[in-house]
């Protein structure tokens, strides 16, 4: 259709409907995971008890960071990373941004939010405006403090460095998908004595966040953080589902490992990586 797909030799469907062997196991796993999420959401909705999510280190840090900025009468800087809104890390960051913006509105502290992507810019403005509204301070919202800087990685980075120099924020919060610019922000922040909270699931940047930020959220924690901050049982249910899936992963690894003692090529592995 559409003249888009002109596959020279299209493979026959697997099991009648699937595209390739590889997609069968992945599809089944996806459906299983979705069912677990659905079950836990239903449980949470009907008010049944779901396991408690452990407190993530660093989540209280937002109060501390914004409190300090308030005391000093200086702004807070927030960056959602340089990916577009299509990245799940960015969406996770917006949950946190809502929380941060509400705190800023409450304490009457200026929040400078910068973007490297027009889509995050659009969403961020909505999120912050809504947060100020919910905090009862719609008048305090200033659209000019939500900024698009550049869609070039280092154009954005140098813009943020400029804001650090000229507007002197007292707190710097960077949560989302970061690449090399992470260390530029962290070092400039340290140099100016900012209190910094950072988090990403881009693993290569983690050592710098862990070493230079005051509080760091690592890898999967940023996804759980937005659910945790929402305090909605329904959202927390999805975090529980992650743990259930993890237990299944353990079970698979243990069974598969035992099987590998008996068979050169074990059937479980065969199913998974078809």
């Amino acid at each position, binding site marked *: *259709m*559409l003249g*888009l*797909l002109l596959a020279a030799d*299209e493979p026959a469907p*697997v099991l009648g*409907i*699937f*595209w390739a062997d590889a997609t069968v196991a992945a599809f089944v796993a*996806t459906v299983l*995971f979705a069912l677990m*999420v659905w079950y836990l959401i239903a449980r949470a909705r009907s008010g049944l008890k779901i396991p408690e999510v452990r407190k993530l280190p660093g989540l209280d840090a937002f109060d501390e960071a914004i409190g300090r900025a308030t005391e000093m009468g200086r702004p807070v800087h927030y960056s959602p990373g340089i990916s577009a*809104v*299509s990245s*799940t890390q960015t*969406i*996770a960051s*917006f*949950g946190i941004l*809502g929380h941060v913006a*509400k705190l800023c509105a409450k304490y009457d502290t200026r929040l400078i939010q910068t973007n490297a992507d*027009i889509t995050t*810019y*659009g*969403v961020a403005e*909505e*999120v912050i*405006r*809504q947060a100020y509204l*919910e905090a009862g301070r719609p008048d305090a919202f200033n659209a*000019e403090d939500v*900024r*698009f800087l*550049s869609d*070039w*990685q*280092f154009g954005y980075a*140098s813009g943020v460095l400029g804001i650090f120099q*000229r507007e002197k924020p007292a707190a710097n919060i960077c949560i989302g998908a970061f690449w*090399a610019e992470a*260390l*530029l922000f962290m*070092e400039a922040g*340290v140099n100016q004595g900012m209190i910094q909270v950072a988090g990403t699931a881009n*693993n290569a940047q983690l*050592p*710098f966040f862990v070493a*230079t930020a005051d509080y760091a959220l690592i*890898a*999967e924690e940023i*996804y*759980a953080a937005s659910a945790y901050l*929402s305090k*909605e049982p329904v*959202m927390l249910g*999805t975090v529980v589902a*992650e743990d259930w*899936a*993890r237990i299944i*992963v353990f079970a698979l690894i243990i069974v598969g490992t035992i099987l590998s003692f008996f068979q050169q090529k074990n059937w479980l592995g065969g199913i998974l990586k078809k």
Partner: protein
Amino acid sequence: MRKEVPMIITALSALAAVFGNFFWLGHHWGVMDLLDNWFNRSFAFAALIGVINLSIIHINAIRRRKENWVYSLILLIAMYGYAILGLIQTTDGPQASWIYNNVLTPLDSTVFALLAFYITSASYRAFRARTVEATVLLVTAIVVMLGVAPIGAVLFTDKISSLAQWLLNYANAGTYRAFSIAGSLGAMATALRITLGLERAHLGGAQ
């Protein structure tokens, strides 16, 4: 219309991607390619938002004669001048590509390369052996650094290279597998939250 339709659009686009990737019919119809195309192109049509936002901020700065307004003027001249040049002769045109190669690329690469300096000062200031765990991090870092660069073998025989290789190949590879599996689960849970309309930041309202 304000909340429901966007929620439906979100869910449908997500499900279409699932259909397009897993099912034969989805592939046959080229669903994923169509979505990819829509995504890239819609994005391009919205690109002027960035220019508008920068213009608003910097024109205001100039009008109000804010401190440093001269730089705002420089930014606007560079942006509009180059945008017009790029639109007239495409970004591959002779003058446009000259500017790209001799101004934009050096600026971009040099700002990127500033990181060599920041990583140096961070190494000096931030990486402390405060705990046993932090010590493990530091020792691994040093072994890998010197094990990979040729100087390690000169100073400590090639045992350090073998050690670095071993750390990278086993302990480290396993750890990154754990990271990646955990990351997939987190991304999957977030994707499901979005599809089900639980995560609503993009609909103008944090949860």
